């Protein structure tokens, strides 16, 4: 059994009365890709900052690479790569300079940093942008540059806070592909996201976080099996009729979830449920049968939707 790279036990961060993180425990093994899934304000970023050794914990235990961040902040940070939620690239420097300068912050020799900068530009598919101004890059390119920058010190662990928030679908897929390559190379990833598809794509294991506490933990598939049915039938009857119709659906499916804009029926067989419903004389404006996702897990656990 290899030593976990991150161990958090009953981790707490309080700002005055407010507990942003309220007793979170998890472990991340070397090479694992671990996710914190939850809505905005769940305490994910605060947790990331504590793991990144830039925020001190109020209570609990935390070790990163076997070290306590309260005592070995710089040693820990020298082995981490950090991709913050909002890009903080150096806009006074050119693209390649961003990598050169960031490498120097770690005290790495100039020649080594220059070699890495070229490799990382290639990895981030920005070879021909080396001399470009940062502000001229698209959102997706900036993110890739931020990830390249986070890799300049050859980190043991890469921390990614909402890596694809604000990107268009194509840019997200390019980014996922890059992160997947890192995962294949054995880089340990810790990422936060409020996109369930992202968590399903990238995470070996994840915790669902809400209001500073962990609601559930497991692999994406196991969480879906445990907290949801195989399929989901989504129906829209019109916003004013949804609640009314829901009252007449008693006994249909394993479970019902009534949202303002639609009704979700959890079942092993969505098509069969839809036939029963239309057979009973109810005709949704639109209907859709899909596989369960982490979104459903979250809805089940918190009674709320992830993206509101």
């Amino acid at each position, binding site marked *: 059994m*290899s*030593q976990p*790279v991150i161990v958090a036990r009953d981790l707490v961060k309080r700002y005055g009365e407010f507990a942003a993180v309220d007793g979170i425990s998890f472990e991340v093994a*070397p*090479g694992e890709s671990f996710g914190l899934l939850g809505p905005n304000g769940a305490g994910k970023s605060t947790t990331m900052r504590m793991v*990144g050794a*830039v*925020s*001190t914990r109020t209570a609990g235990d935390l070790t990163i*690479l*076997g*070290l306590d961040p309260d*005592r*070995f*902040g*710089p*040693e820990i*940070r*020298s082995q*981490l790569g*950090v991709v*913050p939620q*909002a890009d*903080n*690239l*150096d*806009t*006074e*420097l*050119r693209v390649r*300079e961003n990598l*050169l*300068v*960031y490498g*120097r*912050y*770690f*005290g790495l020799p100039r020649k080594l940093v220059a070699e890495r900068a070229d490799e990382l530009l290639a990895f981030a598919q920005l070879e021909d942008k080396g001399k470009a101004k940062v502000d001229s890059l698209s959102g997706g390119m900036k993110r890739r540059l931020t990830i390249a920058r986070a890799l300049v*010190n050859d980190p*043991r662990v890469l921390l990614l806070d909402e890596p694809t928030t604000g990107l268009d679908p194509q840019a997200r897929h390019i980014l996922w592909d890059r992160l997947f390559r890192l995962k294949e190379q054995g880089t340990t990833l810790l990422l936060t996201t409020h996109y369930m598809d992202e968590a399903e794509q990238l995470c070996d294991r994840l915790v669902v976080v809400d209001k500073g506490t962990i609601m559930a933990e497991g692999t994406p598939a196991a969480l879906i099996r445990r907290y949801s049915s195989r399929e989901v039938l989504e129906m829209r009857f019109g916003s004013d009729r949804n609640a009314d119709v829901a009252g007449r659906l008693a006994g249909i499916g394993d479970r019902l979830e009534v949202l303002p804009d639609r009704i979700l029926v959890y079942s092993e067989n969505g098509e069969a449920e839809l036939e029963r419903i239309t057979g009973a004389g109810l005709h949704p404006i639109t209907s859709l049968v899909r596989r369960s996702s982490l979104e459903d897990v979250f809805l089940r656990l918190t009674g709320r939707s992830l993206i509101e």
Partner: protein
Amino acid sequence: MSDLTQRDLAPASLRVRPARSLYAGNARAVMFRGWRATRSTNWLVMVSGFFEPIFYLLAMGIGLGTLVGDVSTEGGQVVPYAAFIAPALLAVAAMNGAIYDSTWNVFFKMQFARLYEGMLSTSLGPLDVALGEIMLALLRGALYAVGFQIVMQALGLNLSWWALLALPAVLLIAFGFASVGMAITSYMKTFQQMDWISFVMLPMFLFSATFYPITVYPQWLQYVIQALPLWHGVELVRGLTTGAVDWGMLWHVLYYAVMIAIGLVFTTKRLRALFLD
């Protein structure tokens, strides 16, 4: 995984050194960044600040000086008016360069560019950032001062060989202002608060024995001026360029040493509180 595990664990020899969390001994990386940034974006802005004290010297020293004639310094020495104000303007040149970099530039980086957040998520400590930025500001002050002193030499306003020591003195002045400037800026949150800095700087520039001896003031006002930093810089540099050197000047040096120390302590504390909470 065994090799991984070994790399993962802290070596037994790793001991806690509290200073390590503040200072990685890598302030030069921060300076390297500043140099690259200046080179690629705002070198033109730098040039403008250089000419300001030179214009003052020409207008007041040469222009007004023909009307004023000679003046006597604090030490009782009689010198031409231009030679009286030139050392003061030299101190001001150092101050301006240092203050510009350590206030507005630092404010921008702190509030808008999120630059320090990025720096402090690497192995850099807050003291590296503080020292690096302050050294940059100091260099800018020094650059202005060297240029100004060359102009002084050309105009024959360095009256003594002691004037060579004005250069290290000016570095000290720039260091002091940069250090305190960055410390104050690190507590500022809005542009309005930043304007207060200019509000203090202008009268300090005009009234700190820059253009005339402070003996024209009533005693209580002299004490006020003597409590402010620029007066100490002006007296120190004037003593050196006019050759009126005495042991009492060490008090001015001490004043700046204290400024540097206080500025560094507060800047480091503040950066730590802001970015390593």
